[in-house]
C-alpha cells in the first residue's frame, strides 16, 4: 500500500500512516476438512484394520473416534496424539488414508505449518491419487505461504487442477502474483471471478484486488467504478480498513494524475476512524450474536452439533481477524488531517476556493503544527484571492505569531502588505513592506514591495515621497517587471503635484519609450491636461480630437471630451463646449464625469440662454439614466429651465411628480434640493398675463400654493415624508422673509424626528442647527447618523465638520483636527471647506502649534471666496497667535484691524476690543486700553455680548482707583 507521506502531490505535512498487512487467506479450508473427515467416518468400507494382531479393531476405532472427537472439538493436539497413536498401533486399511490426512490437518490447525506440510507431502506420496490429493496439494500451498515460501506456494497453487482451482485459490494465486510484481498475470486470473459479480465477501476481496491492480496499472477510472460499487455493498466487506486505504490510494492516484474532481469523489468515500470502528464493532457484535445463537441451537438440536461447532469455529476465526483489524484501526493514527489536506488541495486546483477555506479552517483548529502552519498560510492566500482582505490579515497575524520562523513568513508578510493596500490602509501597508524589505532586502518580494510602497505613497498623495521611492525602484530594479508603470507614475506624481512643467516632459518621455504601452491612452490624456494648465486651449482641443479618433472605445473617452469642453469654454466657444460636454456624458460610465459634464453643459446653455435645449438635455439624461445619482439634480435644473421657458405651472407639476416619487426614499439626498426649488417657485406670485394687468391682482397665498403641489395626503405616510414637508414649509417661510418662523419650523424637525428617520440633507442641516443652538449632544447624533448611514453622500463633510467643531468646543483639539482632516480626505469638503479649514486652525492654536495655526489663519483670511465672519475671526486669531508668541504689538494690530474693518461682525468685534485692551495693559499702556474699552461700551450693537460686562467692570474698577 502506498505511504501517503511519500506521495509527490502531498504537502510535507501529511502524517505518516501505517497500513495493516493484507491477509488474503481464509479459514474455509478447515471447514472442508472437518466435514470430509466426519464423512469419512461414515463411509462404508472405510475400515481401519489393525496390523498388530494384539490390537483389536474395536480398540482402533475407539482411539480413532476419540481422536476425531477431539478434532471436532478443536482439541487438535489431542487429535494429533490420538491419530499418531493409531499409526503406532499399526493401523492399516483404506481408512488409514483419512488418518494420514487428519494428522496433517491437525498440525495445520495447530499452526505447525512445517510439520503439516511434511505430513501432507507424506500423504501425497502414500496416496498420489487419493480422494483428497487436491486438498492436500492446496494445504501444502497454504503451508508454504504461511512459512514465507511465496514462490513455492505460487507454484503449488498453480499446479492445482480442475475443481481445486476454486475462487479462493485463484484469489490467493492472484495475490501472490501481484506481490511478485506480475499484475497482468494476476488480473488474468481474477477477471473471470470478478466478472461474475459481487456475490459474497470472497468476490468482494477479488474485486478489491482487481481495483488495487488497476490502480497500479494506472486504470484509475476502472478502479473507481469497482470501489464505488464495493462501497455500495458494506455487507460484503469484511475488512473495511483495507477498502478504506485502497480508496485513499485511488484518491491519491487521481491527484497525482491531476484529475482533481475524481480524486475528490474518491476522498469523499474514505471513512473516518470513528465510522470504521463503529462498523467493525457492529460486525463483531453480529458475529458474537451468531455464535451465541448457534450454541443455543446446538443445545436444542444435538444432531447439528458438529456442523454448528465447525461454523462457530469459523466464526471465531473471523471474530479474531475482525478484532485484530479493529485494533489496527484503533492504533493507526487518524488520517483525517491528511485527508482534509488533500481535499483542500484538490479544491484549490479546481478553483473552488471557499471549499478550500472551510477545510483549512477545520485544519487550523486541529492539533498538528504542520497542518496548522499550512492551513494558516493557505487561508491567507485564499482569503486574499476571494477578496476577504480582513480575514486574510487575521490569518496572517495568527501565522506570524505562531510560526515566526516559517519559511513562508516572507510571503505571508508580503500578502499582508497587499491586503492592507486593498483596504486602502496605505500607511500601514508602507510599514509592512518596510519591515519585509528590512527582513529580506534582496528576497523574492523585494522588487514588488518597493513598487507597492511607492504606490502607497502615491495613493496617500505624498507625491514627493513617492517620487523618491519610484526613483529608488528604478535605480535598484532597472529591468524590473513594473518599470513601465513606475516610469508612468513618476510622470503622474508631477502631474498631481500640479508641476505641469515637469509632468509634461515626463509624460512625453513615457510615450516615446512605450508607444502603445499600457498607459499610453491615459498619458496622452494627461498631456492634453498639461496643455490645458498652460492655457494652450487650441492645442488641447486638437489633441482631444486626435485622442478620440485613436481611442474611440476607451473608458477615458468621456473625460477627454470633458477636458475638450473645458478648453472650448476657455475659448468662449460655448456651443461647441456644450457638444463636447454632451459627448462626454454619452461616452462614459464614470458617475463623476457624467455629473461634471452634464452640469458644465448646462452652465454654458444657461449662459447662451438656451433653455429649451437645457430642458431637452436633462430630459434625455433622465430617460437614459433615471437611477443616476445626479438624476435629482437634473430634475432640479430641468424645472428651472422650464420656468425660464415661461412654463412655471408645468415646472411645478413636474417637480411635484418627481418629489412624490422620491419623498419617502431616505437615500435620495437631493430631494430637499427639489423641495427648496418648489418653495422658491411657490414663494412668488406668478406673473399676470398682459391682458389682465389693468385688473387688481388676485390674492395670492404662497402657503396654499405650496400645499397644492405638496399635498401630504398624496404621499406615503412615513417619517421622512413628514419631515420633508415640514422642511418645505420652513423653506417657504425663509423665502417669504419670515426667518423667526422658519427657524421655529426647522427646530421642530430637529426635535420631532429621530436621526434614523431622516435623509442626508436634513441630517446635515439639523446637525448644524442644533450645534448653533448649543445642543452638542443632539447635534452629534445627527452628524454620526449622517456618517454611518450615508458614507457616500456629497454632504458627508457636514458630519466631519460638525463633529470636529464639537470636539473643538470641548477642548479636544487633536480629535478635532482628525475630524477636519477626514472632512477633506474622505468627504472632499465640498460644502464645508471654509469651516473645516478655520476649525483646523483653531485646533492647531489650541495645541500650541503657533506657526502652523498662523499659516492656516492667513489662508482663511486671504481667501476671497470665504469673506465673511470667518475672515474677521481669522484676523482675530492671528492676533491671538501673535499674543501667544509674545508679539504684543503685532497682536494689537490684528485686534484693531477686526473692529476697524469688520464692524459687521459684532461678536468678534466685542472680543477684539477686550483683547486689544489686554494687550495695551501688557505693553504698559493701560490708558490706551481703557480708551478702547470706552469706545467699545459706546457701541450699542455690542451691548448684548458678555464681553460688554467685562469691559464695564474694568472701566468701573479703574474709575474707583
Amino acid at each position, binding site marked *: 500500500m502506498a505511504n501517503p507521506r511519500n506521495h509527490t502531490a502531498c504537502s510535507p505535512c501529511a502524517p505518516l500512516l501505517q497500513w495493516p498487512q493484507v491477509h488474503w487467506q481464509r479459514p474455509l479450508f478447515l471447514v472442508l476438512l472437518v466435514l470430509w473427515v466426519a464423512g469419512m467416518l461414515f463411509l462404508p468400507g472405510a475400515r481401519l484394520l489393525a496390523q498388530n494382531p494384539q490390537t483389536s479393531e474395536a480398540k482402533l476405532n475407539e482411539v480413532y473416534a476419540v481422536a476425531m472427537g477431539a478434532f471436532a472439538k478443536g482439541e487438535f493436539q489431542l487429535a494429533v496424539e490420538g491419530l499418531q497413536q493409531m499409526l503406532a498401533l499399526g493401523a492399516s486399511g483404506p481408512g488409514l488414508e483419512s488418518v494420514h490426512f487428519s494428522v496433517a490437518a491437525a498440525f495445520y490447525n495447530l499452526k505447525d505449518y512445517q510439520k503439516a506440510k511434511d505430513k501432507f507431502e507424506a500423504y501425497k506420496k502414500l496416496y498420489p491419487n487419493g480422494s483428497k490429493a487436491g486438498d492436500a496439494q492446496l494445504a501444502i500451498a497454504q503451508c508454504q505461504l504461511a512459512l514465507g515460501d511465496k514462490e513455492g506456494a505460487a507454484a503449488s497453487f498453480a499446479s492445482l487442477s480442475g475443481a481445486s482451482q476454486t475462487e479462493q485459490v485463484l484469489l490467493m494465486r492472484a495475490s501472490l502474483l501481484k506481490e511478485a510484481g506480475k499484475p497482468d498475470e494476476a488480473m488474468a486470473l481474477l477477471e473471470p471471478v470478478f466478472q461474475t459479480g459481487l456475490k459474497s465477501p470472497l468476490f468482494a476481496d477479488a474485486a478489491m484486488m482487481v481495483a488495487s491492480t488497476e490502480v497500479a496499472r494506472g486504470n484509475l477510472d476502472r478502479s473507481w467504478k469497482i470501489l464505488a460499487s464495493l462501497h455500495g455493498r458494506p455487507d460484503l466487506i469484511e475488512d473495511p480498513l483495507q477498502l478504506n486505504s485502497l480508496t485513499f490510494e485511488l484518491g491519491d492516484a487521481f491527484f497525482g494524475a491531476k484529475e482533481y474532481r475524481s480524486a475528490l469523489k474518491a476522498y469523499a468515500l474514505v471513512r473516518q476512524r470513528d465510522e470504521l470502528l463503529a462498523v467493525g464493532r457492529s460486525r463483531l457484535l453480529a458475529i458474537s450474536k451468531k455464535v451465541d*445463537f448457534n450454541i*443455543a441451537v446446538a443445545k436444542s438440536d444435538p444432531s447439528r452439533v458438529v456442523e454448528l461447532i465447525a461454523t462457530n469455529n469459523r466464526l471465531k476465526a473471523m471474530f479474531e481477524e475482525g478484532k485484530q483489524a479493529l485494533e489496527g484501526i484503533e492504533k493507526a493514527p487518524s488520517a483525517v488531517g491528511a485527508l482534509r489536506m488533500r*481535499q483542500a488541495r484538490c479544491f484549490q486546483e*479546481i*478553483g*473552488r476556493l*471557499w471549499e478550500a*477555506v472551510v477545510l483549512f*479552517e*477545520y485544519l487550523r483548529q486541529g492539533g498538528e503544527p504542520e497542518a496548522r502552519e499550512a492551513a494558516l498560510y493557505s487561508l491567507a492566500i485564499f482569503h486574499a484571492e476571494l477578496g476577504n482582505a480582513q480575514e486574510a490579515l487575521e490569518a496572517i497575524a495568527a501565522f506570524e505569531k505562531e510560526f515566526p520562523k516559517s519559511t513562508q513568513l516572507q510571503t505571508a508578510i508580503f500578502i499582508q502588505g497587499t491586503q492592507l493596500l486593498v483596504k486602502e490602509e496605505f500607511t500601514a501597508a508602507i510599514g509592512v513592506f518596510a519591515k519585509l524589505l528590512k527582513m529580506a532586502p534582496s528576497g523574492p518580494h523585494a522588487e514588488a514591495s518597493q513598487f507597492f510602497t511607492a504606490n502607497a505613497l502615491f495613493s496617500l498623495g505624498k507625491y514627493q515621497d513617492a517620487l523618491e521611492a519610484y526613483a529608488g525602484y528604478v535605480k535598484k530594479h532597472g529591468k524590473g517587471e513594473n518599470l513601465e508603470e513606475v516610469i508612468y507614475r513618476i510622470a503622474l506624481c508631477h502631474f498631481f503635484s500640479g508641476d505641469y512643467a515637469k509632468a509634461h516632459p515626463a509624460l512625453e518621455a513615457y510615450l516615446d519609450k512605450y508607444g502603445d504601452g499600457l498607459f499610453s491612452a491615459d498619458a496622452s490624456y494627461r498631456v492634453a491636461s498639461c496643455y490645458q494648465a498652460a492655457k494652450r486651449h487650441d492645442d488641447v482641443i486638437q489633441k482631444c480630437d486626435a485622442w478620440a479618433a485613436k481611442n474611440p472605445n476607451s473608458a477615458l473617452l468621456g473625460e477627454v471630451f470633458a477636458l475638450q469642453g473645458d478648453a472650448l469654454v476657455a475659448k468662449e466657444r460655448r456651443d461647441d463646449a456644450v457638444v463636447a460636454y454632451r459627448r462626454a456624458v454619452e461616452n462614459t460610465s464614470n458617475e463623476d464625469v457624467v455629473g461634471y459634464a452634464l452640469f458644465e453643459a448646462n452652465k454654458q446653455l444657461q449662459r447662451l440662454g438656451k433653455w429649451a435645449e437645457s430642458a431637452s438635455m436633462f430630459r434625455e439624461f433622465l430617460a437614459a439614466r433615471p437611477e443616476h445619482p445626479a438624476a435629482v439634480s437634473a430634475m432640479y435644473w430641468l424645472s428651472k429651465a422650464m420656468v425660464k421657458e415661461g412654463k412655471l405651472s408645468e415646472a411645478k407639476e413636474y417637480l411635484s411628480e418627481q418629489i412624490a416619487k422620491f419623498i419617502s426614499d431616505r437615500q435620495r439626498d437631493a430631494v430637499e434640493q427639489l423641495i427648496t426649488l418648489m418653495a422658491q417657485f411657490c414663494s412668488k406670485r406668478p406673473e399676470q398675463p398682459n391682458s389682465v394687468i389693468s385688473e387688481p391682482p388676485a390674492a395670492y397665498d404662497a402657503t396654499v400654493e405650496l400645499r397644492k403641489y405638496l399635498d401630504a395626503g398624496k404621499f406615503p405616510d412615513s417619517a421622512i415624508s413628514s419631515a420633508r414637508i415640514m422642511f418645505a414649509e420652513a423653506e417657504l417661510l425663509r423665502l417669504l422673509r419670515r426667518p423667526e418662523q422658519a427657524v421655529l419650523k426647522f427646530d421642530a424637525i430637529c426635535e420631532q424626528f429621530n436621526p434614523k428617520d431622516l435623509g442626508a440633507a436634513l441630517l446635515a442641516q439639523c446637525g448644524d442647527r442644533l450645534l448653533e443652538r448649543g445642543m452638542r449632544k443632539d447635534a452629534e447624533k445627527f452628524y454620526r447618523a449622517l456618517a454611518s448611514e450615508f458614507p457616500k453622500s456629497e454632504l458627508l463633510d457636514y458630519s466631519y465638520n460638525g463633529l470636529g467643531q464639537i470636539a473643538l468646543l470641548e477642548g479636544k483639539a487633536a480629535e478635532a483636527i482628525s475630524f477636519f482632516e477626514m472632512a477633506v480626505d474622505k468627504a472632499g469638503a465640498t460644502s464645508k471647506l471654509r469651516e473645516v479649514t478655520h476649525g483646523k486652525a483653531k485646533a492647531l492654536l489650541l495645541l500650541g502649534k503657533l506657526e502652523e495655526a498662523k499659516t492656516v489663519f492667513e489662508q482663511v483670511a486671504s481667501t476671497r471666496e470665504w469673506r465673511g465672519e470667518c475672515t474677521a475671526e481669522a484676523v482675530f486669531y492671528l492676533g491671538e497667535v501673535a499674543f501667544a508668541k509674545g508679539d504684543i504689538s503685532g497682536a494689537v494690530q490684528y485686534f484693531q484691524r477686526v473692529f476697524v474693518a469688520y464692524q459687521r461682525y459684532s461678536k468678534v468685534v466685542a472680543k477684539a476690543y477686550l483683547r486689544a485692551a489686554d494687550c495695551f495693559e501688557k505693553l504698559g499702556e493701560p490708558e490706551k486700553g481703557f480708551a478702547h474699552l470706552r469706545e467699545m461700551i459706546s457701541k450699542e450693537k455690542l451691548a448684548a455680548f458678555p464681553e460688554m460686562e467685562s469691559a464695564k467692570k474694568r472701566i468701573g474698577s479703574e474709575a474707583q482707583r
Partner: protein
Amino acid sequence: MRCRLSLIFSLSLLGGSLFAQEIVMKDGTMHKATEMRREGQFIFYKTLAPNTSVTEGVVAVAQIQSIVFPELEGFAEARVAAARGHALKVLRITEGLVPLVRVHADLPGNQWPDVMRLHVPALVAGGNSEAVSALQKQWVSTADTDLDNAAKVLFLNKSDPEKAGLAWAALAKPGASSLGAAISWLGIGQQALESKKWGLAIRSFLSVELFVPAQRLLHPSALLGAIRGMLGAGDEVQARRLLVELKSEYPDTPEYESAAGLLP
C-alpha cells in the same frame, strides 16, 4: 394489550416471490412465510408446504431471533433517487413505506432504520410541515443514535426554533459528519442568509457537502444555499463554479433550476 395494526404481506404485494420473509426463531428453527400478520405480541404467518399447500402458524414475538424481510418495493429506486438528490421522489416512495415498516419497528431485523435513513433527510430537503408532524407522531427510536438525533433536530426545527438553534450549535461542530450536523448546518446557513451574514452562510452550507458527503439528499439545497451566499457576497465567479458542480451532480433537481435562474 394495545391493538396493533394488522398488516398482511401477500405475494401480490411483494412481487410474487416464493416466500416473503424468513422468521428465524431463537431455537434455530426458521419459517419461510409468504404472508405475515402482526397481532400484538404474536405473529401469524402462512407458509408453503413441500406439497404446495398453505399452512398457518403463529409465533411469539419474544421467541423471534430475527426476521429477514424482503427488499421493500421501490426501496432500491428510492436509494438511487437519494444518490441523485431527488428528495421529492424519495418522499413519494418512503411515505408509502413508513406505515409498512412502522408496524414491525420493534422486531429484530426490522426495516424501520433503513427507511428512516432515507425518509428523514428527504423530509429535511423536500418535506413540508405536515409530513414532519406526521412522522413525529409515530416516531420510535431506530437504535441508531445519529439518526435519532437527526430526527429530533428535524422535529425541533418545526416545533421549537429556539431549542433547534441550541441543538444546531451543539451538533454543528467543525468536521462533524453526522446527519444531525448536516441538518444543523442547513439551519444555520439559512439563518445566516436571512441576516446577510454571507461568510457564515457559505461556510455552513459547504460544511454539509464537505463533511457529510454520504447525505447526498441534502447536497442540492446546501449547494444552492452556498451559491446564494456567494452571490450575496458579490462573488459571482465562485458561485458559477459551484453551479457547475450542482449541474454535474444533481442536474434534475429543483435546486439546480433555482440556482441556474440566479446565474443566467
